[in-house]
């Protein structure tokens, strides 16, 4: 009876969809919701996957491992996308790793298809898999896509990135150095258990892409070819493509380039190239190329001088026909003092400083205190000469320091191209390789006992470098083949004068930079651990311990005196406290404050002393090169300073490189010119090799002795050149 009235509901003007809101959803920290639904049958139909959309992967279940044709296609596409990547050194991800996955993950179809095979009861059953290789930095911009074949029961799928070693029993994004975009809620997870609202949800049939921009260290995702906007910033390097699944029936297929991508990544890459190139074009530069060349040479020269690479600096000055500001003897003095500090012989370093630069430490009480504290630590270590003279037997290894004042590698923060000393072959270290071991260990490993056997072959490195320049893969064997040739006479002389007193219980001169470098190449972690177990306080000598305690009292007094004169200084207090704390433990090397004993801690002390000396001589306390590099840390001022640059410069006519070459010493230049310098990411390596095998024996030998440092130096020069746009004044003339 009321029906007529009921039908009068003509009011609503526009029909509105009544779907329940999908987001945002909150979630307890570090927790994944419990599944609430019964398992759903899994659709595995291959035909469904193959439907429209260029991103569809293999057509059906039958597709097994990719055939040779597909493999060829993949290689072709990868070469086109990432021309700057040298795939021999830094292979690109091509499939999921059967070794680097949680066991709830199953792989098929040439390790491209991932399915979940756990119980999927709760978040504890999450499982991830990483790609076979990390994303090489030289990609510049890297991209991969994942197609959701089936969302399974709950569709708790995460797509993203993670560093090596991140727990695989988790979804990407939940842990440190792990980043993910999750399908069920569309949130992004940035190393955290709680997600941020980011994009839409995704489910069966969707193609999700993940793009890593290594130039500005950001990441964005795409859904079915549509960019969703930046998800993460400040990404670390060496991340692996990663997917994670959590409930039964979830299946995803990866596309690392096997198929055309749904998203037009090449267009995005073009934009970035254009962006950088226009920045470079707009950069104001003077007309006279010579100015730039001189500036560049000055940069290199001052760097060498600053760190006391005396003979290299001289050689460099000779070939470039420039002069060095500082006197030779002054450089050598500084070098000598630096070596003492780096060898842990701080007492002697203080003496030498006082003798060579009278008044310096008196004027720098803070520096003096810092040195004394370090001296105390070295006494505990058993390396300082004041305790070493008591020593009945030499402590085996912990005290040695890789001779050359190789400060340079540390300046660039822990970025990818600052690494790979240790067991790695230097030629591999173009900055793209993954570091295999923790930096603090691999970078300055202590000498092993076995090192003495090869210690007589000090000048070996010349030959090593030769082999290096011709065939990098052979470099590992260098020590066996490199037992001839002359070494840099200057370096030998230096070595004679300043033997590193650590290893020699005998008086034989066996140490110089070259030799030590050799040692670095040979040490590995196992030998280091060996040596660790044998450490004893003050080398185990009682008299030495007494001397140390006495020194400690003196140090305490000095502290009090400084306190009276200059007021309280919390930094000093902390320094002293830390140093004395070492005595509270039976094994100082394995205690909470034991890090102080690490030889790496000598570096800041050494750098401070070196800077103070330079300042007292009215020389810059920081070389311009380092200042330029320092800007790297502040991304705002110099945002693109990493090797991704190579990618961006890709396609530039080689003419633009000529200016860079012009700034190099002639022999170097000739060598480099024979190659297409931007042919691959080994650009810098080419410099090194060319330099090493040049006719200038001095230059050659010195370069070898500091091979790692010089290597890094050159890398940095390349970057600086790029950063100051020095490469490209020709662009202007070309435009006209």
């Amino acid at each position: 009876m009321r029906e007529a009235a009921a039908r009068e509901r003509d009011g609503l003007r526009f029909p509105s969809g009544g779907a329940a809101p999908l987001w945002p959803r909150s979630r307890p920290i570090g927790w994944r919701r419990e599944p609430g639904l019964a398992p759903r049958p899994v659709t595995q139909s291959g035909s469904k996957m193959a439907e429209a959309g260029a991103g569809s992967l293999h057509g059906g279940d039958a597709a097994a491992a990719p055939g040779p044709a597909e493999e060829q296609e993949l290689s072709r596409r990868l070469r086109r996308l990432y021309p700057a990547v040298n795939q021999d050194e830094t292979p690109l991800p091509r499939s999921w790793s059967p070794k680097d996955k949680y066991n709830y993950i199953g792989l098929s179809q040439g390790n491209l298809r991932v399915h979940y095979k756990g119980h999927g009861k709760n978040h504890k059953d999450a499982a991830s898999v990483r790609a076979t290789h990390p994303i090489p930095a030289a990609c510049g911009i890297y991209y991969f896509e994942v197609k959701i074949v089936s969302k399974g029961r709950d569709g708790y799928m995460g797509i993203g990135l993670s560093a090596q070693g991140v727990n695989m029993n988790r979804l990407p994004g939940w842990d440190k150095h792990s980043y993910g975009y999750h399908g069920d809620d569309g949130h992004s997870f940035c190393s955290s258990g709680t997600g941020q609202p980011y994009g839409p949800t995704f489910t069966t049939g969707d193609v999700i892409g993940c793009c890593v921009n290594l130039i500005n260290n950001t990441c964005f995702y795409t859904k079915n070819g549509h960019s969703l906007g930046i998800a993460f910033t400040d990404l670390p390097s060496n991340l692996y493509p990663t997917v994670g699944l959590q409930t039964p029936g979830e299946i995803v297929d990866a596309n690392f380039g096997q198929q055309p991508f749904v998203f037009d990544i090449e267009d995005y890459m073009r934009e970035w190239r254009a962006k950088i190139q226009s920045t470079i074009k707009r950069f104001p530069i003077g007309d006279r190329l010579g100015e730039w060349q001189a500036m560049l040479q000055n940069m290199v020269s001052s760097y060498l001088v600053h760190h006391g690479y005396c003979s290299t600096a001289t050689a460099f000055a000779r070939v470039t026909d420039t002069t060095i500001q500082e006197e030779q003897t002054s450089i050598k003095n500084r070098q000598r003092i630096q070596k003492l500090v780096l060898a842990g012989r701080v007492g002697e370093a203080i003496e030498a400083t006082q003798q060579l630069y009278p008044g310096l430490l008196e004027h720098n009480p803070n520096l003096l205190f810092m040195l004394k504290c370090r001296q105390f630590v070295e006494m505990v270590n058993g390396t300082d000469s004041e305790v070493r003279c008591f020593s009945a037997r030499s402590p085996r290894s912990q005290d040695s320091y890789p001779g050359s004042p190789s400060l340079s590698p540390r300046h660039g923060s822990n970025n990818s191209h600052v690494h790979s000393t240790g067991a790695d072959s230097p030629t591999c270290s173009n900055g793209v390789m993954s570091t295999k071991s923790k930096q603090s260990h691999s970078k300055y490993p202590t000498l092993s006992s076995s090192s003495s056997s090869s210690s007589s072959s000090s000048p070996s490195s010349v030959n090593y470098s030769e082999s290096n320049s011709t065939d990098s893969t052979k470099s590992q064997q260098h020590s066996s083949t490199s037992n001839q040739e002359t070494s840099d006479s200057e370096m030998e002389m230096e070595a004679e004068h300043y033997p590193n007193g650590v290893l020699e219980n005998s008086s034989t001169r066996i140490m110089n930079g070259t030799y030590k470098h050799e040692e670095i190449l040979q040490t590995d972690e196992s030998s280091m651990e060996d040596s660790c177990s044998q450490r004893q306080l003050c080398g185990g000598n009682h008299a030495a311990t007494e001397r140390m305690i006495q020194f400690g009292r003196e140090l305490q007094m000095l502290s009090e005196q400084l306190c009276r004169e200059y007021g309280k200084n919390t930094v000093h207090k902390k320094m002293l406290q830390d140093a004395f704390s070492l005595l509270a433990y039976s094994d100082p090397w394995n205690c909470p404050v034991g890090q102080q004993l690490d030889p790496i801690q000598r570096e800041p002390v050494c750098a401070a002393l070196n800077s103070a000396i330079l300042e007292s001589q009215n020389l810059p306390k920081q070389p311009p090169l380092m200042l330029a590099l320092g800007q790297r840390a502040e991304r705002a001022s110099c945002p693109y300073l990493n090797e991704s640059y190579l990618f961006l410069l890709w396609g530039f006519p080689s003419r633009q490189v000529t200016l860079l070459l012009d700034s190099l010493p002639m022999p170097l230049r000739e060598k480099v010119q024979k190659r297409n310098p931007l042919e691959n990411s080994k650009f810098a390596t080419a410099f090194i090799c060319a330099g090493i095998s040049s006719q200038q024996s001095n230059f050659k030998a010195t370069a070898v002795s500091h091979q790692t440092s010089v290597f890094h130096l050159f890398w940095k020069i390349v970057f600086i050149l790029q950063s100051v746009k020095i490469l490209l004044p020709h662009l202007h003339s070309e435009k006209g």
Partner: protein
Amino acid sequence: MASCVLEAPLRMSVLSEVTASSRHYVDRLFDLDPQKVLQGVIDMKNAVIGNNKQKANLIVLGAVPRLLYLLQQETSSTELRTECAVVLGSLAMGTENNVKSLLDCHIIPALLQGLLSPDLKFIEACLRCLRTIFISPVTPEDLLYTGPDHQTILFNHGAVQNIAHLLVSTSYKVRMQALKCFSVLAFENPQVSMTLVNVSVDGELLPQIFVKMLQRDKPIEMQLTSAKCLTSMCRAGAIRTDDSCIVLKTLPCLVRMCSKERLLEERVEGAETLAYLIETDVELQRIASITDHLIVMLADYFKYPSSVSAITDIKRLDHDLKHAHELRQAAFKLYASLGANDEDIRKKIIETENMMDRIVNGLSESSIKVRLAAVRCLHSLSRSVQQLRTSFQDHAVWKPLMKVLQNAPNEMLVVASSTLCNLLLEFSPSKEPILESGAIELLCSLTQSENLALRVNGIWALMNMAFQAEQKIKSDILRGLSTEQLFQLLSDSDVNVLMKTLGLLRNLLSTRPHIDHIMSTHGKQIMQAVTLILEGEHNIEVKEQTLCILANIADGTTAKELIMTNDDILQKIKYYMSHSNAKLQLAAMFCISNLIWNEEEGSQERQDKLRDMGIVDILHKLSQSSDPNLCDKAKTALQQYLA
């Protein structure tokens, strides 16, 4: 032109300072020997170059009309005509007064006529002169573009073909100008747009060329303009909305144009174009809403001038201020398009920081463009039931909206009244305050508008207002509208207006006391109107609605009698019970059902009367119907007879 010639001597006499040499140049133009005239023009050309005084002199001496005369004479040699055009061009280069004088002598049509000449040199001279004149700020543009259909004129003259090949020119400037030309030609012009799809240059179709110009390494100007071309083509239906060049190229490009990295002008244009592109396609709206966090990105449009720019940089502040309005209105437009159809997107928009405050502020901005865009945005969001109940109420958006409706231009009124319709829905908490602020009067006046959209919106809003309203409101509506206006609307030529008016009637005639009350006062007219409509040529929906009104009347206590005593109407109801359209049958059945309902007074008599009319037979027939609704309804009705 002749009148100009005659004027010349008159002016001459006024001016005393005219030099003899100037006069000499003009005199020579009147020589009988064409050769001498030509030489005279050439000499004049040389004399005026860079000499503003000479130019002014010649103009006051009346050289212009004579030159134009020579230029237009079919008998003049091409050489002479060309030289004339050159001299005129030279004169145009002078002061703004010169240009004005030239325009006064109707130089434009003469020069345009010259473009039809076969001689290239002459055409070039005419074009140069035209260009000089049109560059001048004193020249009104509509001299060239006289009608709204100049796109078509250009099109008909083969502009598309001629410009197309310039798109592949080696010069960037040429490519860019050609592209701009297309973007203007194709804008809201289906004819041009449809043609463009099939034009090819060097074996490549125009859409492909445009897509190439969208590439991310191309200059922004080029990307933006080609996106505009593709947008026009898409809106014209020349390219499907699901074509990859729209979905994967044009749309993302336009979203990028909205990013903070772009210039303010580019961001305005990008947002406006995108709003236009996605306006009517929900799938494009969905894609845009997830692309590059567009909804959040747009929030930034409201932050100009920023507090920083005010302090640090006067220049920037000025720049920001200039664009602030444009930015805001562009953002509102785009939000409006984004939220047009999808509830989830609306929710996302409203959750954007301070969104409702921004709209409310926008409604009372001084710039009408911003106000209009803000209303559009509000309108789009008002389609959400949930938002009507929550954010709209929290921010009392009805207040500024009612204010906007006062004395607004039609364009604004259309959108604002449309929004008001939604705010008057029965579940909207804004309904009460809107009524109290005198909405009825306003809406009633809208129904009298010349503008169709306003009439529809006015009556629609009243209909919504009347739904389940109390007696007083219904009376107010009836009083405000007046019976004459109500019947005027029932005879409106537009079916939409008719439908909504019927809807209003239906909503007014609900609940028994209301029905009886209204029918007691307006019964006669309403029955008349209903009869008229049922007899007239109307579509099914209109008739159905009308029958529903009858059903409501039949539900009244006293109102019933108006039907029962009207045999004509009863016959009509009977007729529709056997109509071929099930909807109409069902509606007629509602009437019968309400008339014969047992428990009510006098039901017996009504049942008898209807039986006598043969209704029961029809009911029996219908109870065998294959349509379950009809069948059920008939059976229920028959049961009333049994009881």
